[in-house]
């Protein structure tokens, strides 16, 4: 073990030093490809990471964590240790913790670079990626509508509702069209016509209850429907169009699929590289670290 600075010894105290020393001797004799994950290693790791050097406090903190969290810390330590050792194998310099982090970062970059080299992509692969990820490319359902609004704050609840229902018959009797909608009712705080809006967008302006009602309405450009109640007031709606969620044809999204696949391949190569490095080492975890 080459990585303990003076402060490390000061804070860990003699007992831990002894354990550490024993481990160092042990590791000399044992396989260089073994990563020992014990209390000393974890405490050191945590102290440097938090820049807080009090081994007893850190020890208490670590064992106060849930098992899940302790597992995560162990996993992070192992990853860092493995990449660090591989970096040393590559002949990068030895040094302090900053250098250590730098070396790990370089390994990540190396992995990214390798990934890019591999990113030659055939057309078939792009098409296959599209097929395998249709959910990703599915476009949300949208509706398009205009509405005539009667304001709650201006009319009160009962008048807003009664004006609305009285007007409904008139709009339908007179065949009032989409273009004429803005001649009726009160000014709505947001918009009169909504084109290709998703459920989330309609909810933003009309509330969830009314948005759900609108998404279940049939398209009918001749028939005003309603009234529907939002927190703002009463609405009569001419449902102009409705597009169910749809999966676009491959040709429509080929460019985007290629970008996505390239990113995926890059991150896969990256992960494979890291896994390969990790796989090079046998990891031994002190069971006391994770048991309660």
């Amino acid at each position: 073990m080459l990585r303990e600075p003076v402060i490390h010894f000061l804070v860990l105290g003699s007992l831990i030093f002894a354990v550490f020393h024993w481990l160092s001797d042990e590791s000399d004799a044992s396989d260089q490809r073994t990563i020992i994950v014990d209390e000393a290693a974890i405490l050191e790791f945590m102290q440097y990471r938090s820049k807080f050097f009090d081994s007893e406090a850190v020890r208490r903190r670590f064992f106060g964590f849930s098992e899940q969290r302790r597992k995560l810390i162990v996993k992070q330590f192992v990853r860092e240790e493995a990449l660090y050792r591989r970096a040393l194998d590559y002949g990068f310099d030895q040094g302090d913790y900053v250098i250590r982090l730098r070396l790990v970062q370089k390994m990540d970059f190396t992995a990214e670079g390798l990934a890019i080299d591999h990113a030659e992509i055939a057309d078939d692969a792009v098409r296959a990626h599209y097929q395998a990820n249709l959910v990703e490319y599915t476009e949300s359902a949208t509706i398009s509508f205009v509405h005539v609004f009667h304001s709650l704050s201006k009319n009160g609840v009962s008048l807003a509702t009664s004006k609305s229902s009285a007007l409904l018959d008139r709009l339908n009797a007179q065949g009032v069209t989409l273009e004429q909608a803005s001649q009726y009712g009160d000014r709505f705080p947001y918009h009169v016509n909504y084109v290709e809006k998703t459920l989330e967008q309609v909810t933003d302006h009309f509330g969830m209850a009314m948005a759900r009602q609108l998404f279940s309405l049939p398209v009918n450009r001749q028939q005003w429907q309603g009234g529907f109640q939002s927190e703002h007031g009463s609405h009569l709606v001419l449902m102009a169009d409705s597009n169910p969620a749809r999966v676009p044809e491959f040709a429509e999204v080929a460019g985007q699929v290629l970008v996505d696949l390239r990113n995926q391949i890059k991150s896969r190569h990256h992960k494979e590289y890291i896994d390969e490095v990790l796989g090079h080492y046998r990891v031994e975890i002190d069971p006391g670290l994770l048991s309660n």
Partner: protein
Amino acid sequence: MSKFWTSKHACLRFSSLVLGFSVAILQADTDPQPEYSSPVAANYPKDVYWGDTHLHTRNSADAYSLGNLNLTPTDAYRFARGQAITAHNGMQVQLRRPLDFLVVSDHAEYLGGYYRFDVADPLVVETAAGNQWKEFEDQGDPIARIGTFTASMQEPEKFYPFPEKVRKLIWEDVAETADDNNRPGVFTAFTGYEWTSMISGNNLHRVVLYKDGAEKAAQIPPFSGQDSLDPRDLWQALAHYEEATGGSVMAIAHNGNISNGMMFSDTSVDGEAINADYAKLRSRWEPVYEVTQVKGDGESHPTLSPDDEFADFENWDRDNIGRTEDKQDAMLKHEYARSALKLGLRHEQELGVNPFKFGLIGSTDGHNSVSTTEEDNFFGKFPDSQPGKKRLDNQMAGVLWQNWRIVASGYAAAWARENTREALFEAFKRREVYATTGSRIQVRFFGGWNYQASDIDRPSYLDIAYSGGVPMGGDLLQAPENKAPSFMVVAAKDPDGANLDRVQIIKGWLQQDGVLREKVYDVVWSGERSPDPETGKLPAVGNTVDVETATYLNSIGSTDLAVVWTDPDFDAGERAFYYARVLEIPKPRWTTYDAVYFNLELSEEIPKVIQDRAYTSPVWYTP
């Protein structure tokens, strides 16, 4: 691409839905006269799009130096589109509502360079700068590299910029990344960068925003502060870009508040009084100004506007960005947007062109690759101001301003016909854009000569507004005899936010005697309040914030406010501008959310509540 095409098709399919003009004055609820022919399809912008034009990633030298080692432009675009990301403090962070557009605007100086050096990218390591940084390390002083970011702008002959070839290769990567993340109709990813000019510690930064994709944008690498610190040279470079590529580009200045009077100075950086050429170029290349962001709000200052009780809002007025010189009162009028708009009127009188004829937007200037503006979801500026127990006590970069002072701000809102680079860029160019300090307050603002008070009650008010006047960013010319301009303002609360307190119209004008004046008019407000007859001030809206739990109630305020207001003090011979300011009711400031979440005591000096707000771009009147 698919969304783009389906949207296009939808436009055709749906053209009959688009509302017609109806200039005729019709009573609501009465039967309209049938049109002789179908009304002309109104071509005005129907939707407001929300975005951030100013965000940094690990490609920025300062962001990287201060701990953003890993989050890339792609991460930034993905986060803006609504995906979850792991922030530097280890927390998962996600937007409740995705953004509609984002400009990743990393610093042009050593763009991407610090990261590439650390990972031994030969592209950077083998440059003169790379050699110098290596020497610093060999001498045991790797930290010295951090200083070269600013030093290379002051002394480029000593701290070497990257060669053109390297800059171009890195820039191609930036522009192509924006293209990869651009989804016309759904999410607009703009290409951009920041020109980081600082003179004597005074901030003159500009974000440069491209309409174009990599095909054009990548042809010429960014113009950096290492090339020149003079904005006139930047404008020349932008002109050169447009000529050479056929593309379109603009510059957006920010943080006049830490420029110690240089941002809207009467002189150019060489001390010469600004002239008509300067004015023409500035108004040509800088149609909008970023008035609010994490490093302070720059709309108004209480010293300049003592009668405006809302002027004292998240101001940063201690010194300049380099912290080299304390603020003097005389600097303020050359720093704040309202004052600059006024100075612009006088310059126009004298030069024939107004150099400070800008619209207003907000943005974040975040350096963590995550764009957050909400009080209850604010992830700071640098990693040191991400949520954590320490950020109410520590200082930016350890030595700069206290982090509790940073502002969860702001948004750029654009009225546009569709969510594409082209449509949004054009909205910025015509200044039909506005700023908010972090909420999605919706506001329309129009000026005209014939608006009637009752027009505001019409559901068709937009037809009247556009056909009888100009939207925010526009000009009113040639007042009809004995007419004062009227302004139509329609504001609605953030659907996921606080109710509205009031709408104000702020007027600035140049008197015949040469004196610049300003006045704030309360034009519409919530509840049954009347202005105090003595002071003319409208009483405060109240406060429902519970600091102990970081909650508030929408039991006061209005969901929407609208009015047609006519200037009672109009003089047709005087140049003027008008813009609207929309105030929300008080809600907990981000520091209060932090205190509750982390169980901390808030010290006396830290504000507990905030009244977030929107500033529209002005409408100008020119005799």
